[in-house]
């Protein structure tokens, strides 16, 4: 989803050609609606411009930066929307179905409940999530198992949102420090 922070020549070439051809095609189609026969003229102009851009891709540097910043802005909006949908729609609706946690008022009108200490072995289970880390490729089956085991199968409906959130995740391209001599 993200374009590279530091585009190589090829990135700029492909970006430039894509944008110029795309714009040419779109402009050609609009022009065709206004006057017949313009589509091919404008498209041909787009092809010529794309040729120039592929020879001198650095002319697209500024456009690339602007496009990248718009893409980043879009990603931020998309992330915010996804989280908002989860928090304000999904959780609210599911919350109407109640909770397995004993959140209600206990007998006698108080919320004080007696807790017993865990046995030595159970302390480990308490931190099961961190004690037994799941391999990256097998997170889904572990997630499903946990959902079944804990009686929270509804969380499976979060998966599409989690996948989309991962796709729209913040740009984590390694920013290589500048001004260092890094060969060794």
């Amino acid at each position: 989803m993200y374009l590279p922070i530091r585009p190589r020549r090829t990135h700029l070439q492909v970006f430039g050609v894509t944008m110029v051809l795309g714009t040419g095609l779109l402009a050609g189609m609009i022009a065709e609606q206004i006057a017949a026969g313009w589509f091919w003229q404008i498209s041909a102009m787009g092809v010529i411009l794309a040729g120039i851009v592929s020879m001198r891709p650095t002319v697209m540097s500024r456009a690339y930066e602007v496009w990248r910043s718009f893409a980043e802005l879009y990603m931020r909006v998309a992330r915010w929307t996804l989280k908002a949908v989860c928090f304000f729609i999904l959780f609210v609706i599911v919350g109407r179905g109640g909770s397995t946690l004993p959140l209600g008022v206990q007998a006698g009108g108080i919320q004080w409940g007696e807790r017993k200490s865990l046995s030595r072995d159970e302390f480990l289970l308490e931190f099961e999530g961190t004690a037994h880390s799941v391999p990256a490729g097998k997170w889904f089956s572990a997630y499903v198992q946990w959902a079944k085991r804990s009686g929270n199968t509804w969380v499976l409906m979060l998966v599409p949102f989690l996948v989309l959130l991962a796709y729209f995740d913040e740009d984590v391209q390694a920013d290589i420090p500048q001004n260092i001599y890094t060969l060794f």
Partner: protein
Amino acid sequence: MIRFILAIFAATLGLILIIPVLAGGLVFMIVASLVHTIAGWLEPPVLRWQQIYEFDAELGWKAKAHLDCHLLEDRDDIFHVVTDEHGWPGTMTIERSEVVVFGDSHAWGYGVDHKKAFSQLDPSVPLKAVAAPGYNLVQELLLLEQLAYQLKGKLVVWFVYIGNDLFDNLSPEMSGYRTPFVRQVNAEGKWEVVTRHLSPERWRASDASKLRKYYPILPALYSDTFLARRAYAACRVLIEKGAEVCRGVGADLVVMAIPSPLALNPVLMQQACKEKSFSSSIDVELPDRELAEICREQAVRFISLKQHMTPQHFKPFDDHWTEEGHRNVAHILGTLHREWKHRH
């Protein structure tokens, strides 16, 4: 169960609601996918710098022989690399050349396509670069000594990169790679070249084996500090030895100082000083003045590239030259070669 049913309903509703958001970003997704996919098809297979070096028992490392490949520099771009049977850049031999350039990655042509490196640009100058990325002056002196008899009657140009050579000469390692260095052995100020620690093993004797940052060090080399005094004293010894080797075989030595891009931009230099709370006064002419003085004493010609280069000759995210920078250096070397030919 009720919560599961509610979740199905809520998720469906949520997904319907975000469809417009996803549709709005479709164009960004398509462009990004096209750029990544097509660029992947167009670019040649690349190597990383770690893959092109091998251990050398006398020099610490050198580039592999007969390379004809593309390297990826993460901060910049892909470039084409060609080396000869010794791992030196290009296919020209020392025997056929009239100018032999010793140096580090600048001389090796790191960061630009082989054909666009200064050593390949001017066909009228038979020039051989003998270099490897990361070399310091000690390694270059050892090379000079190794190749001395092949340098007879030639013009020898020795690149001194202010950005790291001055410091690296004093260090037994460079970011974990063991390197020849110089040290003072007694109170009389005698210096010796140390190579006995060289091995393919990673250097672990000090914390310095991390990736070294040079910009915090540079302000100290541009002012009157203990480090600067040691660094220039070491340079003096190395250049004296180099001059002696060249005189011994009848070669003409020229020392060419490559400025750090930092020195070409006073604002950056002041910024570097502030970041490190460096209070001493900075003298951007100090390295050139010191080197010029050392060369004058040895009757060696000194050329400061600081007078000929601008920040545009350096890449924005590392210290290597751009294609324009290489053209500029090729022009300077061409002029130097013509003058030298004229005198002979």
